[in-house]
């Protein structure tokens, strides 16, 4: 019923608009096209200035509304260089934007049709063309130079001694793996994968795997101030490790290993205080369309102090031991998933 009413209303609006439009053309014939056109042209010229003003006020209002909603504090060293580059780009494009948008609407208004003014026949000027080729070229050179400097810094090999974490995507969640005591991630083969007891297809006859810690829900613990390298892969389709707070991102492609590294600079708890949001968490989002559950492919990242990290790590049990109970020591620990939940709870409780 209400749907029907809405349809009627919409229909009515169209009919009214159509009638108005018809009658305004009628007025034109009565008043004489020329008089009418002149009047209309003036109104439209004015409305160009109004549109310009509306845009500018709109942009300002939008900015005021949006800024408080955005977390602008970068949580990594790369994030800081991202922010400064963003600012440089914003200033350069912002100046061009304001000038050109103003000139466009101002010229439109100023040079509206007039019976007294003759148009200025002006078709070429090599000098002008040179100016507006060279100035943007110089501006681009600056942007490229600044950009590539940060880019090569970000994509350099990870520094010696960086912590390694493997992050693997699958439809539709993340799995993370730590190298364990030996500091080495063991080899894996997709043919060994089993959803029951070998999520990543680890080669059990590789001894480096025996102490690896695997976290099925993808939770990742990082240490503040310690560089970390993500070794990224995928089990099925392309996913993408999106780390918006750290201003980093890398595709997870089946059959290919990709890497990124960065240094977290703010712990989760510090960020909760800075943002005055006790529920704040670093989130890992999937940023590459991967199917039905893409929008829910979420994992949590916890940045903490070395002591907190060590305490957490001490509670983890190697995946090998979990999946091979016969090889387990006498006292089984909590499963990693439960342990992970625990830490999240603790963090939020601390702040309440």
């Amino acid at each position, binding site marked *: 019923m209400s*749907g029907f009413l809405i349809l009627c209303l919409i229909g009515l609006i169209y009919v009214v*608009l*159509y009638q108005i*439009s*018809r009658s305004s*053309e009628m007025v034109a014939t009565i008043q004489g096209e020329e008089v009418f*056109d002149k009047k209309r*042209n003036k109104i439209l*010229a004015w409305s160009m200035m109004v549109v310009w003003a509306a845009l500018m006020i*709109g942009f300002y209002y*939008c900015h005021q*509304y*949006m800024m408080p*909603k*955005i977390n602008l504090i970068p949580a990594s060293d790369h994030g800081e260089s991202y922010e400064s*580059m*963003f600012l440089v780009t914003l200033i*350069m494009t912002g100046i*061009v934007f304001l000038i*050109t*948008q103003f000139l466009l*609407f101002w010229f*439109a208004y100023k*040079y509206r*049709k*007039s019976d007294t003014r*003759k148009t200025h*026949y*002006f078709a*070429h000027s090599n000098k002008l063309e040179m100016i*507006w*080729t060279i100035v*943007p070229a110089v501006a*681009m050179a600056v*942007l*490229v130079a600044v950009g*590539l400097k940060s*880019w*090569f810094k*970000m994509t350099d090999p990870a520094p010696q001694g960086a912590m390694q974490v493997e992050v693997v995507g699958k439809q539709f969640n993340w799995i993370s793996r730590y190298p364990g005591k030996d500091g080495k991630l063991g080899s894996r083969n*997709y043919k060994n994968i089993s959803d029951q007891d070998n999520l990543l*297809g680890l080669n059990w006859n590789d001894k480096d795997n025996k102490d690896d810690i695997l976290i099925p829900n993808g939770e990742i613990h990082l240490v503040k101030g310690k560089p970390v390298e993500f070794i990224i892969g995928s*089990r*099925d*389709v392309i996913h*993408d490790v*999106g780390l*918006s707070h750290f201003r980093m991102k890398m595709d997870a492609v089946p*059959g*290919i290993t990709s*890497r990124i590294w960065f240094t977290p600079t703010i712990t989760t708890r510090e960020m909760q205080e800075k943002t005055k949001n006790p529920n704040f968490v670093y*989130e890992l989002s999937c*940023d*590459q369309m*991967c*199917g*039905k559950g*893409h*929008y829910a492919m*979420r994992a949590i990242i916890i940045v903490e102090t070395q002591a907190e990290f060590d305490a957490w790590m001490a509670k983890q049990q190697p995946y090998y031991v979990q999946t091979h109970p016969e090889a387990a020591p006498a006292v089984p620990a909590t499963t990693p998933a439960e342990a992970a939940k625990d830490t999240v709870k603790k963090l939020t409780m601390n702040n309440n």
Partner: protein
Amino acid sequence: MGNAASIHTHEVHTHHDHAHDHGDHHAHHEHKQHFLTKYVFSQDHKIISRQFLITGIFWALAGGLMSVFFRLQLGFPSDTFPILEKFLGDWARGGKMDPEIYYGLVTIHGTVLVFFVLTGGLSGTFSNFLIPLQIGARDMASPFLNMLSYWFFAVAGVIMFCSLYINTGPASGGWTTYPPLSALKEASMGSGLGMDLWLISMALFIVSSLLGGLNYIVTILNMRTKGMSMKRLPLTIWAFLFTAVLGVLSFPVLLSAAVLLLFDRHAGTSFYISEVFIAGKALPNIGGSAILYQHLFWFLGHPEVYIIMLPAMGMASEILSTHSRKPIFGYFAMILSMIGITVLAFLVWAHHMFVTGMSPFLGGIFVLLTLLIAIPSAVKVFNWLTTIWRGNIRFTVPMCFGLGFVSLFISGGLTGLFLGNSALDIHLHDTYFVIAHFHIVMGISAFFGMFAGIYHWFPKMYGRFMNNTMGYIHFFITFIGSYVIFWPMHYEGIAGMPRRYYEYGAWESFKQFAELNQMISIAAIVVFFAQILFVFNYFVSIWKGKKLTDPNPWNANSLEWTAPIHPGHGNWDGEIPEVHRWAYDYKDDGNGNDFIPQHIPLRPGEDGH
């Protein structure tokens, strides 16, 4: 030479009762022509262009409606809408759409707007309509291939449409359809039959666009009337030429990408698949590269955005000049910048792939080349601004859309500079920032070029005007509305909000945008209804619009306005006019007019262009 050739084709391919004797009023002939050959399987470029346009309008409405549906989901994730169930049936039981169909709609929306509307509907319509009329030819070089080009397009559309109604739903991996998602039917519902239909439809579309493109190039190069040297061509024609060149060189690459994908899907090959474990088992495929597809796709994909943009740029140039009564500024600079864009468009594709793990050094090269392409774009903007400077502007509807085009092109082009810099793209990639960038610069701005073109050439197409008042309402709502929809998306992208999400409620980092998403959805619905007003105006005006009394209603210089109000198949009754000057002589002709059409001989002592 050109003349003789075109008359010849004309004789061969039209009915004997529609002979080359154009002395009579054409209407006599047309009565005798069968409806099917005149309006359906027509070989007249003017009819074909209208077929492209009306098919494009259909797809724009369909694609627009899809966006309204998925905006309902994004804006009101916890509400239900019975209307969704009416349209989507079991896909939206109880009025709440499934993620599967959400992704299906997003995918088909992107595909049809990019390919069917802004490629087929834009360049198909205007290249067909304007090339023969503006260069002074009786028809295309091959009217028959031209007709085939439309029918391949139409069939591609039918197949795409059918894919909406199959059990497993349409393709749903995004308009870029990256494998392995699109290669493996286990990976998603839409990767089943829907994906095959998508690939077949695209293949047919590519054939259509190749047939069209070759025809446009040959026609422009060979069939210009006497005196119409390349440097007297209107910029529209230059733009269509480069568009066709881009299409002819890049579409075949997409075709090969599609064929390889079909092999991977059905012939057990491993071009794009390697080491995949899916649906509980490990696939045997090893050694393929999923990234290969992305290279092939974007080798077309980036030129494709300029295939969309160039015709809009050409038409905007023509329209800004005509309605400000001033020559286009920097005619040669405009051509050079189009050449620059055409060449560079082939050299920047990997800027869509900065975060695929490609070599950072290569990434650096692509940053450099990508930012280079901003230079010709900037040159064009400054030339447009100088074109209206000290003009005598008539705010006709096409002029308003032309100005809107420039504003949007500036806004969207500038955000490209953020994305082109890999160090920024590493955060902004696949967020709403990209959505904002390409909708403003390609979606809306190209649409504005297209609307400007439709309002400007409607009188030539139908011998009637569209209603002005409705045109202005359409302009203001669409212009302001588009900024309202897309501008705030930049901020969402800066916050890292990923694109192609069905819901954000569970995300601590993105859920604060719920209210904003709602506002955007409402604006999108309003803008959609404004487009219906345009469609309404278009169709009513075909039969009810104010009739043309003067064959040159805008006092324009280019050749199409010298043809009769209702040109027959062959365009000019009698001889094709000879051209004596460039297309932009907007100056005093000595008799109180402010324009001198191209077919008027130079006055003694007057400088040619």
